[in-house]
Every structure is written in structure tokens, then in C-alpha cells.
């Protein structure tokens, strides 16, 4: 699916309408098809591939309207509480990415029309890395990140 969109964009071989459609959709995967579990996205080994697999694009715009609540130093990398809150209007989805995990994409939450820009969950982190929250809204991908340290415990970890 991703490669097909790229062909349309690069070649412009189909009628302008096709490009127009692609452009108005912002080249991003529509919410309806986001609902399907994407193997490409969840098995991607790096952040950009995960984003492309999920959204058809890895263009991120930094935003201070996204807040990540996560510990500075995780007590145990197996259970890291992460909450994401965003005040960006029309947020369609919130994705949580652990940058240095073997497969960075941990979750994608697709929000219904009346659902608030807030999710909370607990993730596994393999090592110290940035936790990146991506919010899809108005055809763009906004993001912010927070570093979470994961340590080797002396007794318990």
C-alpha cells in the first residue's frame, strides 16, 4: 500500500485527480484503514519505517501541544507507565514509539470523534531511549519525545 502511494506521487502518471486525492489526504493513511493491524508498522526495525508503515509518511512536526508522562528512570523496563495527552484539535490517533526497542512501534490508538486526546498504558522498554508520541491530526503528524532511562537493577532487575 505504501509503495503504491509513492508511485502515484512520484510518477503523477494517473490523472491529476489521483494526485489531488493523494494530496488532500495528505498522503496519510486514512483513519479507517489505520484500524487494520499493520505488520509493516509493528515489525519495522526503525522509527521511520514504523511511521511509514503506519501512516504512509514519516514526516513529523514537533509540537508542544503533546505531553508525555513517563518516568525519568524506569523502575523496571518491563512495566513503564506512559500517558500521552494532547490539546491538538481533531486528533485522530495517538501512537507510542520506544525509539530503541527492537521494534519501535508499541501501540497506536485510533480515537473516535468524541474521544479525548489522552491515552495511558504500560510499555516494555529494552533499553534507555526516547519515548516518542505521535499525534495524527488534520493530515499532519505531530510529535514530541521524552527520554526514559532503563537501568540494570542490582537485585530485582
Amino acid at each position, binding site marked *: 500500500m505504501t509503495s503504491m502511494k509513492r508511485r502515484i506521487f512520484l510518477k503523477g502518471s494517473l490523472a491529476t485527480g489521483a494526485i489531488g486525492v493523494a494530496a488532500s489526504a495528505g498522503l496519510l493513511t486514512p483513519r479507517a484503514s489505520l484500524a487494520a493491524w499493520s505488520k509493516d508498522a509493528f515489525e519495522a526495525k526503525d522509527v521511520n519505517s514504523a511511521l511509514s508503515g503506519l501512516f504512509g509518511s514519516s514526516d513529523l512536526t514537533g509540537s508542544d501541544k503533546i505531553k508525555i508522562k513517563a*518516568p*525519568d*528512570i*524506569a*523502575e*523496571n523496563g*518491563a*512495566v513503564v*507507565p506512559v*500517558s500521552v495527552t494532547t490539546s491538538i484539535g481533531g486528533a485522530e490517533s495517538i501512537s507510542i514509539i520506544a525509539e530503541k526497542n527492537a521494534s519501535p512501534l508499541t501501540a497506536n490508538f485510533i480515537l473516535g470523534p468524541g474521544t479525548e486526546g489522552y491515552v495511558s498504558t*504500560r510499555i516494555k522498554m529494552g533499553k534507555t531511549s526516547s519515548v516518542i508520541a505521535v499525534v495524527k491530526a488534520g493530515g499532519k503528524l505531530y510529535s514530541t519525545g521524552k527520554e526514559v532511562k532503563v*537501568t*540494570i*537493577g*542490582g*537485585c*530485582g*532487575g
Partner: protein
Amino acid sequence: MKKILTAILALGLLSTFTLTAQATPQDDLDKFRSYFKKRFPNTPFKDFINGVYSIDAASREQWEEIEEFPPYELNIEKGKDLFAKPFANGKTYASCFTNNGDGIADRYPFFDAKSGKVITLEASINACREANGEKPLKWKKGAMADISAYMHYTSRGNIISVKISDDPRAMAIYNKGKAHFYAKRGQLNMSCADCHVYNSGNKIRADLLSPALGHTSGFPVYRSKWGGLGTLHRRYGGCNKQVRSKPFKAQSPEYTALQYFHTSMSNGLEINGPSARK
């Protein structure tokens, strides 16, 4: 000398000698409490039941996030169902315990004069099973931990009240447990006290060492490391392994003795099991 000793033995005074030569459990408890009060002056006594979360704000915050909806709630529910389910003979666990097993965990472990043994809650659970023709459960996790979690949950808020009977057999077990707590062992040559008394609040690599005061109140414990619930003796075994000492078996006389001493040092504190820890 021998004659004198024999005479003293005959008079049954030897045990008295031993007692006065050692501190009483109440002395031990007083010393334990004042040690930790001095070491952690900003921690209210009641708070010690929360382990490192009572002495470290950053980890407390994460713990509170998890307490929002802690994973052990799943175990409590399982435990409740297991507790209520009748045995093949139609009887239930409730028939084996005072007050139908509701809110009684604070009295464990206790010295049973008849058998001369110290009885733990887990041991009582299996004793109940065996008395009713059922196979015993494994000691460290699974159904045993779930049932123990449920029984501790119904006892939440009760004050830990382990009675150290002055029966010399009970005192012997208490002293055995106390000796285990303070004895160095393993390749790393460390005692429970080395970490949890003398180095409590200090770091071992990136881990903060919890104070032994209040230690047992939160068991059984859901550890993020285990990804599940485990009993106190499971943790004892783990700790022994961590100092590279051969662990004892769960519910062995060694760990039972240790638990008798260890839990009594938390007398006066509330039960808050089951709990979540890293």
C-alpha cells in the same frame, strides 16, 4: 563443671540462661524500630509498609501509576474464586479457618504448641487441602499465591500481630530465624541485614534497597520482574540466589523460621498485601 551444668539443666534453668543472654523479641522489635526511625527520620512509621516507595519519590510516582489499576487485582479475583470453590468432598477452605478465613492473615505465622511448629498461612492452606483429600499446591506462585493474595486482601488494614510465644520451642525457631537474617551467606557473603538494615536506602547498582521494617506487610507480591505474583518464600529464595547462596526450599524450616522473626519485626504495622513492586 560438668556436674554443675548437669545440675542447672536438671533445674531447667539453662533455658533461662539462654534467654537472658540474648535479647527478648520485644527488645529486638524496639531496637529494630528505633534503628529505622533514626535512619529514615522523614518517614512516618505507618509508611514503612510501602518499602522503597516510602523513601524515594521518583519510584513512588511510578508505583502510584501502577496502583491506579494494579495487575494483582487479577490475582485477587482468581484467589477469591479459588477460595470459594468447594473441594471434591464438598467442603471449602472457609471450614479450615477462624472467621471463615476472612481477615486473619495478621496473625500469621504463629507457633502451634501441639506440633511444636511455626505455621505460615500458605502452610495452612495446603494443610486444609490435604485434610480434605486434595493434592497440595506448589508454594511459590500460581494458585497458592492467588489464594494467599485473596486472604491477605481481606486482611488489609489489620495490624500485623505475630506472637512470639515464650515456649522454648517457639523461641528456638525465632532465634533461628533471627540468626538467618543476620548471617552472611553466599559467594557475595551478604546477610539480609547487610542490604535491608545497614544499607537500606542505599543503592545496589541501580536498585534502591528497601528497609526491613515493613518488609513482609505487602506479600504476596506482584513483581514487574516476575511478571506475576509470588509468595514471601519465593522472594526469600530469590534473594538467597542473588547473593549466590543455595536457596532453601519454600516452606522449609529455615524460611519458616526466618519468616517468624522477619514478620514479627513488622508487628504494629498494617497489612497491605498483595502489593506491586518492581
